[in-house]
């Protein structure tokens, strides 16, 4: 809650003058913490001198739960990791399982994975950009961005039967083939999307107030980004062209022609706008995938219901909307993993907050937090 702890106490600066310092507790339930994060902010007037995130309010022990579930039963759990983009955790997990158990994936399934995950990227980035809008007070921007997201969700609903927790990508393929006419729907929706995104660009990123609110806020330089393991739009906003789809390519991504949007200044503006243009690039990828996809199987044939990979460990990662999402699986040869570890990009990116926040005002604190785009299901797991 917003009104949790706060205090005004006199502290003294180096020269012995009394400084009023306000300790403001933001969260764990605050409209701009994007979930349940608590930030203990030390304020000097309005300026943040120290911001310490306290996480774990959504720590549900998914990694522990995975140890008592079969490989198939974990897929619904991974849905609930990054609930803004469930497909990613599904896919990363399935890649790790496939690597561990040596399962091949039919090509059509890979195409469907690419299409759904790029759609998911649009949906997830819309959530992020929209909430950046809401953080800065442009609530209508949030509504418009969410409307774009809703179009994607409608597609997902027709494909997977769920609006949020898709449980679609499975070890060895995907749960079901696209229903009739679905790919045409995707083409139609994706065809309309770039125009809508450009409009959002003009509405929000062109707006002078928004630019004033976002530019120069939370500047992350390249060495820090690399050293702190930042990934995804947070790293790319700083100019680190680290996109697993290109740098450490996987699945069918070498077949597609797309650009990687990067920022130059590493501020909140660059991070947010990278997300917007990544969505446009995703639309390009989807259109190419739609041109290339051919009928076929969507599941590796004859897969046993109960997977029992040989003992060993495997790690695989994909580029999620938040960065490089990895799953580390240890198998002891039983039908349940011995250990599952989620390498969460949001967790690593959120660790940057104490670095970025000091020196900015309280208003900017929420913008910086929003520009890191944490999803606490994934941060806390």
């Amino acid at each position, binding site marked *: 809650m917003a009104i949790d702890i706060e205090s005004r106490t006199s502290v003294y600066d180096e020269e012995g003058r009394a400084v009023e310092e306000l300790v403001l507790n933001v969260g764990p339930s605050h409209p701009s913490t994007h*979930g349940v994060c608590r930030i203990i902010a030390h304020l000097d007037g309005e300026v943040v001198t120290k911001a310490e995130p306290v996480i774990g309010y959504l720590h549900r022990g998914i990694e522990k739960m995975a140890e008592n*579930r079969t490989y198939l039963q974990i897929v619904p759990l991974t849905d609930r990791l990054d609930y803004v983009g469930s497909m990613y955790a599904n896919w990363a997990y399935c890649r790790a399982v496939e690597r561990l158990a040596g399962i091949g994936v039919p090509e059509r399934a890979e195409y469907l994975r690419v299409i759904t995950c790029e759609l998911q990227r649009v949906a997830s980035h819309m959530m992020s950009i929209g909430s950046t809008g809401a953080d800065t007070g442009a609530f209508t921007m949030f509504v418009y961005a969410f409307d774009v997201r809703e179009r994607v*969700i409608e597609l997902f609903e027709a494909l997977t039967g769920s609006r949020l927790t898709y449980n679609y990508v499975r070890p060895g393929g995907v749960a079901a083939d696209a229903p009739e006419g679905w790919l045409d729907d995707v083409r139609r929706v994706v065809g309309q999307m770039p125009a809508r995104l450009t409009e959002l660009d003009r509405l929000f990123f062109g707006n002078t107030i928004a630019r004033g609110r976002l530019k120069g806020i939370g500047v992350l330089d390249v060495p820090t980004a690399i050293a702190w393991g930042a990934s995804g739009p947070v790293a790319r906003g700083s100019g680190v062209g680290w996109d697993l789809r290109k740098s450490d390519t996987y699945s069918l991504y070498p077949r597609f022609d797309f650009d990687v949007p990067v920022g130059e200044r590493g501020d909140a503006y660059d991070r947010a706008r990278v997300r917007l243009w990544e969505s446009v690039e995703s639309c390009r990828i989807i259109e190419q995938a739609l041109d290339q996809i051919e009928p076929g199987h969507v599941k590796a044939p004859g897969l046993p219901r109960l997977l029992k990979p040989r003992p060993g460990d495997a790690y695989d990662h994909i580029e999620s909307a938040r960065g490089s999402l990895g799953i580390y699986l240890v198998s002891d040869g039983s039908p349940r993993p011995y250990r599952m570890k989620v390498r969460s990009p949001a967790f690593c990116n959120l660790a940057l907050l104490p670095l970025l926040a000091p020196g900015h005002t309280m208003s900017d604190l929420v913008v910086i937090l929003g520009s890191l785009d944490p999803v*606490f299901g994934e941060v806390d797991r």
Partner: protein
Amino acid sequence: MALVDKIGQSLTGAPLVLTNVDALIDWSRGQSLWAMPMGTACCAMELIAASFSKFDFDRLGSFPRPDPRHTDVMIVAGTITRKMAPAVKRLWEQMPEPKYCIAMGNCAVSGGIFYYDTYSVVRGVDEIIPVDVYLSGCPPRPEALQDAVLQLRELIRSRSIAQGREYDRVYTLPLPGGERAGTTDPGRAEAADVLAGRRPKTGGDE
């Protein structure tokens, strides 16, 4: 308890007066259920979606306000962990009467998918606060949430202000600040700890 409820209880013997007043009050309360979005996890996405273009909570007179003091119904959307529970409890205490609670999604209803094997999840928000409407789904559709609000409206309509409100169990999650944390008091001690270099207690001390 709001003043009107006290009056209502003293007027129990006068049903005729109460009927019309009841109807008006129930109408206004049911028609204007402002939501405290206690969105912690996945269901929060659907909670957001419910108030946006496609579903439009506002049509039903319900919209989310982040401040508990201004709201009537707490929509607990998402998993409540042991670390989070005191915060939820305190927010609930901060809401003015009459207040209602919708447990949205199976995590809030019973822990749902996180019922077994996990060490940190509260198995249902009704372990810490009273729940009026349970909404199943993982997550429920936004329409389902709207339906839950309509059901809550029915519930309000079925209650006379003369009855007041009875909770059928005692909610005994201890709070650092005493039984009714209708104030911001207890945080100060924690904050003082922070400033004094002692580590803050981050809750979850069940």
